[in-house]
């Protein structure tokens, strides 16, 4: 069974994505802050991570640096799902091999598909979703 770790302190995001990933056959774990996320990466050994950038105890960029420093997780597929990122965060995260989606435009099914694609890429089977140094912003155009 595929495993995904959701790191986000937003209970609505947790609920929505737990449901969508479970429906797609994933085993899902949820972490509400960076420290819990680091613990779960080690303990759960996920196939992919859905990561928020704004966490109570750290930011996603520093979290990524720490995780990427461990050779076991240097190529772990990570998809950043954020309500809003400022420029330096996008720049820094883009150097940590991630894909980006914004909550305003994200369709949960597309997020699940992107994670599946990223897992395939990491396994050497799929298309170019999460290549190093490339920020891909995917999802529908935000509507207001």
């Amino acid at each position, binding site marked *: 069974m595929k495993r995904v770790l959701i790191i986000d*302190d*937003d209970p*609505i995001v947790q*609920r*929505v994505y737990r449901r969508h990933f479970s429906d797609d056959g994933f085993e899902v774990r949820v972490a509400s802050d960076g420290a819990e996320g680091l613990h779960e990466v080690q303990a759960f050994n996920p196939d992919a991570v859905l990561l928020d950038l704004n966490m109570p105890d750290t930011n996603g960029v520093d979290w990524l640096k720490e995780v990427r420093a461990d050779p076991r997780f240097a190529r772990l597929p990570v998809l950043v799902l954020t*309500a*809003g990122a400022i420029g330096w965060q996008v720049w820094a995260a883009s150097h940590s091999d991630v894909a980006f989606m914004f909550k305003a435009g994200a369709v949960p099914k597309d997020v699940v598909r992107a994670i599946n694609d990223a897992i395939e890429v990491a396994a050497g089977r799929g298309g170019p979703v999460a290549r190093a140094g490339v920020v891909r912003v995917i999802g529908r155009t935000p509507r207001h």
Partner: protein
Amino acid sequence: MNIEILRDAASGDFAFARELAREYLDFMAVQFRLLHQALEGGATSQIEHAAHLAMGSSLTCGALQAGALFRRLEHAAREGRLDALPALLAAAEDEVALERQRLHELLFSRAGPGDFP
């Protein structure tokens, strides 16, 4: 309320959409309490974080106008514009109150299992 976004979030499951809507409104009540406490204490970092969370939840559920107001609140707190915060918080509360009414009409006023309009 953008019902298409809510329907996508709920995977087309009307009962789950109702659950999400209830959780969203409960979560907003908690966030507003935190925001008022932080505003009284001048704790801009707490305002920024609470507004950011409220923005993410709103956007995920399709409450886009509320999400936009929380974004403005978050930015004002980050920039230390204390004078702008009370009006933005009041506007966000008014918008969420409207969303509560819309959600009631869309999801909770229908008897039985219901379906999306």
